[in-house]
């Protein structure tokens, strides 16, 4: 599997990069699997994903839950719950 991984906001700051190309092994099949695999890649990754309840995911630019299969997706993004103006 080859995936373009994007990080935003404090997830990006903790991981230390906004984008990386990864190729996990074939037993990595769901979003949750990708998260567990990423946590092993660096202390920054581990820190960013320490509390997965604070992480939201988009697969090929669509919001998805953690149990979604990666399938043929090319891009996965991890970010905090979205926020906007005060109103």
């Amino acid at each position, binding site marked *: 599997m080859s995936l373009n991984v994007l990080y935003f906001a404090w997830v990006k700051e903790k991981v230390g990069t906004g984008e990386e190309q990864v190729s996990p092994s074939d037993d990595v099949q769901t979003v949750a699997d990708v998260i567990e695999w990423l946590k092993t890649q660096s202390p920054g990754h581990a820190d960013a994903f320490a509390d997965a309840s604070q992480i939201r995911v988009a697969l090929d630019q669509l919001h998805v839950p953690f149990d979604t299969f990666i399938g043929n997706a090319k891009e996965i993004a991890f970010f905090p719950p979205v926020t*906007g103006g005060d109103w």
Partner: protein
Amino acid sequence: MIRVQSEPFDAGTETNLFLSRNANSGGVATFIGQVRDFQDQDSGSSKTISALELEHYPGMTEKELERIAAEAHTRWPLNDILVIHRYGRMDLGEAIVLVCAAATHRGDAFSACEFVMDWLKTQAPFWKREHSNTDSSWVDAKKSDDTRAERWNKND
């Protein structure tokens, strides 16, 4: 129409353009969110917020806003929807978002405009960072936004 941009926009000018594009709609409901002058209200806080910054997910932001506008069109008889949303750094008093909805009946225009705002706040990939005199920090999501967005599911 969806526009995601870092440049400031003029809410009044955009509203007028929308009105003239929709001369066959009687009613236009709009919402403008601006960077409010925090000092007036959070007087208990020693932190002075001077600007805010919105990070976003280029590509997905536009797709989400298009999807939300399309959903509004399926739910109410609308003639037109406009969403303009800024990203990047914004100063106090600047407009961040403008939503306009045009319809024959005002109830449809109001509902669509509020719906777009509620879904946008929970689903469009923006993340806010506040810059103050002492630091800059990411703002947490608000539970009230989830509650507002969920109202639109219950009515289905």
